[in-house]
């Protein structure tokens, strides 16, 4: 049986949420680990967490 790829990989660090899609102020822009963040919020990730590289590439978050 083929095992599907999981999202648990490296990503330690601190990120600031960007707003490339122009989501209205006060509204959720991204969700990481089920937690909602708005533009300007800080996401702190430690240990083995999600791989956020694609989120960075797409401009949703920026590594501090």
């Amino acid at each position, binding site marked *: 049986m083929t095992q599907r790829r999981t999202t648990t990989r490296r990503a330690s660090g601190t990120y600031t949420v960007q707003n490339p899609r122009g989501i209205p102020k006060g509204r*959720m822009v*991204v969700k990481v680990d089920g937690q*909602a963040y708005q533009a300007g919020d800080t996401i702190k990730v430690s240990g083995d967490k999600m791989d956020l590289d694609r989120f960075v590439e*797409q401009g949703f978050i920026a590594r501090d």
Partner: protein
Amino acid sequence: MVKKSGIGQRLYVHGFDISGDTGQINNIGSPIGLLDVTSIDVSAMERIMGKRDAEIDFTAFFNIAADREHLALKGLPLTDVLGVVLFGTTAGDQMAAISAKQINYDANRAADGAFGFGVQLLGSAGFPLEYGLVLTPKITTHTSAADVTGIDFGASSASGAVGFLQHFEDTLPSGTIEYDIEDSSDSSDGDDGAWANLIAFSDVATPWAGIAERAIVAGTVNRWTRASTNGTFTNASFSMSLRRRVSGDYDAA
């Protein structure tokens, strides 16, 4: 893929579920005008595509109960209404949407005593009938902010998308509901992974009143999409659907 019947469909018109009062959908159409461009040097017709249109035509049974067809349809609003037909009630099923003027509400009392109304929705917002996928099974109710398990489109797309929201009237809710459609490039099951807000519908600050909204977004849409409620509220009853715009669509961005 199996062939499917029209059994078990739904019809929502601008925040009202009138499925239970609709006996027949007579037409779901997107007619396209043809322009005659036949020149004198050919011996058969030449035609090119003209304007597109949209229409949903249905017959409703008379029902004066709260939130049923008479309340939903008798007003003949001057503003556009958003109508959607769900061809199935499972997330991922097909649907059709129309932004339209409701142009009639015509009663017919037959000799045998049957009493029904003919209703026609005609496209009025500058775009044709739109086909997409249902993101929510039937009418979904959240008692607080929550996410519906996403559906896998198999690949990302690059031409934007159109989202459709139907928020249904309720006598109990309070708060402000933030309806969103989210997308993810790395989910494996529609729940895990990192998600971004793809389409943020307008805040629903009067959740006791039914409303509907069509919203568009340009650019990349990731492989997975899901419906989501955010904010602080009690009782959000809703349906959301999504049409991915693909290259070649009249409105691909």
